[in-house]
């Protein structure tokens, strides 16, 4: 009984930790731009279902090539 409740609490604590870790990685990947590829693929699937989906390497090559000719400022 007591042990069962303890184990349940342990599992939920584990679940909480997993959720927190998931939220943290979701956020970090979002801010750094890692999730942008996924977002692009989803966009293609949704809006242009027939179009070929680039590989992650190709996506980043193109993206950096775009940044090469279209720089963004950083503040002081």
């Amino acid at each position: 009984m007591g042990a069962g409740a303890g184990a349940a609490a342990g599992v939920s604590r584990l679940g909480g930790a997993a959720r927190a870790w998931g939220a943290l990685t979701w956020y970090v990947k979002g801010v750094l731009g890692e999730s942008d590829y996924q977002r692009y693929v989803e966009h293609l699937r949704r809006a242009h279902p027939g179009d070929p989906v680039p590989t992650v390497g190709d996506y980043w090559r193109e993206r950096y090539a775009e940044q090469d000719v279209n720089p963004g400022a950083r503040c002081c």
Partner: protein
Amino acid sequence: MRSPELVQKVRNDPGLPPVAIIDRRPMTPGKKILFAAIGLVAAIAWALVAFFRGEDVNAAYFVLAAVGTYVIAYRFYARLVEYKVVRPDDTRATPAERYENGRDFAPTDRRVLFGHHFAAIAGAGPLVGPVLAAQMGYLPGTLWIIIGGVLAGAVQDYLVLWLSTRRRGRSLGQMIRDELGSVGGAAGLIGVFVIMIIIIAVLALVVVNALAESPWGVFSVGCTIPIALFMGVYLRFLRPGRVAEVSLIGVVLLVLAIVAGGWVASTSWGVEWFTLDKVTLAWLITGYGFLASVLPVWLLLAPRDYLSTFMKVGTIVLLAVGVIVAQPAVQAPAVSSFATAGNGPAFAGTLFPFLFITIACGALSGFHALISSGTSPKLVEKESQLRLIGYGGMLTESFVAIMALVTAVSIDQHLYFALNAPAALTGGEAGTAADYVNGLGLGGTPVTGADIQGAADGVGEESIVSRTGGAPTLAFGMAQILGSFLGGAGMTAFWYHFAIMFEALFILTTVDAGTRVARFMLSDTLGNLGGPLAKFRDPSWRVGAWICSIVVCGLWGAILLMGVTDPLGGINTLFPLFGIANQLLAAMALALVTTVLIKKGLLRWAWIPGVPLVWDLAVTMTASFQKIFSDVPAIGYWANHNVFREARAAGETSFGTATTPEAMDAVIRNTFVQGTLSIVFAALVLVVALSAVWVWIKAIRAGGLPTTEEPDSPSALFAPSGLVTTDAEKEVAAEWKAYYSDNPDAVRTGAHA
């Protein structure tokens, strides 16, 4: 849901769930009590900061006063700006939705975009300015950072973000031309370019001053380049797209580089190789800026940016935790004698206008207007989120500035001035510096040369005398605060170099990105002149890229070199120019915003950007006027110029702080350049301001004028507005979820399709 009759859910398409919520519910009693309590705590903290004159004013009061004020301002003042000026319409598709392409136009979660926007606006500026301004005591800086942030800086950021969002994410320069006409637009464009050059030069000067004669610093900051190259190659060839992973590896390598720096600096070959003087460093940084501008982005710029973002958030959190945990006692007076006498060693001039010039970032930063127009407007999901991104983002930066100020004012006053007075005053040695600072009448226990040397040894540096520029002072203060509870005295040197490293990292990221942006501005402008120059418009033309990069780096490199060799102390003479430049950019942005408000018939609310605009013009024009016309050589560039010219003409071979005829010539040349730049800046901004006033008069006479706002297009998505999702928003979000699970084929396509 509480009182659903006051919540209106708006649909654009009867077949779709609502796209907007109009929530007219008053605050719950619980919330009212909460905000009243926050207001009360902030008021008490303010009273303690402003009127308490005990032995130690606790740094925690500053944190409470700042955070309390931000919460109240965000909840009430920003809400007023939202209701009366921005009037967000969530039934309208934002550029991210309307032009969605999954790349630069993409609806992005508001919390992610907040982090993204904050990382783009925050850099070394809010860390450096408050540190220098601490010479006037803690009170003026605190007041300006918090009040200026709330009433000026955050308003500017919020409203420019709004303008750009309503204009498909157009840039500040384009919007000035569209709304103020071609003359104002041209002045704006040149202004942005010149201002960018001076900002890069002064920031680079801060890095040079932090790294000069410091083998540890040079080694560890130098390591960031191979680390970035490694990350670039890793991302390109080994594990494409693993940005978070490679950033983490980069941060670990960075920490190792700091530790290794301490070891390298303790060897004789390390000292020999990595002890560089300022002139060498200035050349190296200029060369680095050139390389960063012509190398592909994936190799150097992008990975550095990841590192910088990671370190930015991490160290700012660390500093905040440090200040709250360590609660250092404040050593500076509330208002020092330098505030009124205007003879401070870190920078010359009286409180008005020079305090407001020195603290630009953190209170009001025109550079943010460049960031707020462009990237973030193309990512925001709903207009009602702009308050969180624009206003909230700037409040966070203001908080960073408060942390930097607290760090600086908690340093022993004698040490603070030993660090920040130029070598011409301190003599550059611990002994002479002790004599100098003891003669300043700072009160407290006088310091000895051995004390100053001991402080330098404690942070692993050869000397801390005249390490001007703000970065070493902040690093010194941060090392004391963090060392007091993390690792003790043994770790102080590590924390010092950790702080130097991240400041250098931010600044070099700004230098990289700024050089690139300026290079493109230059090539665009040249290309638009037409004729044989039209070729410059082609970004893939390598020769053009090289020429423009050389010109841009040459311009800021020359100013940097001028700063490092200036016999008067480069920071002392150039930092005001940096602040004036940044604030003048803010004047352009605020003039633009005010113009749009008047054109839209919102004259009654034009004071919201208008008051900051008038204040900013008063500050910058007074400062420019004094820099141009003051007859005090320490303040006026031309006064100094003339004094040295006359001395030279009289055949003198040394004068003031210049000990050789060459040094005298350098002063004559530098003051000429600085004086000319002051005139150019002021003139450009006056042109923009006058064009704005001209448009105001026309608009008021006509009872409003059309603006270049994009026409409405209906939204077909929903997203919550604030940081926390409300119960009504949760309901609508659930409706959308149910809708998509019932209609898996009905997918959001954006309007462009």
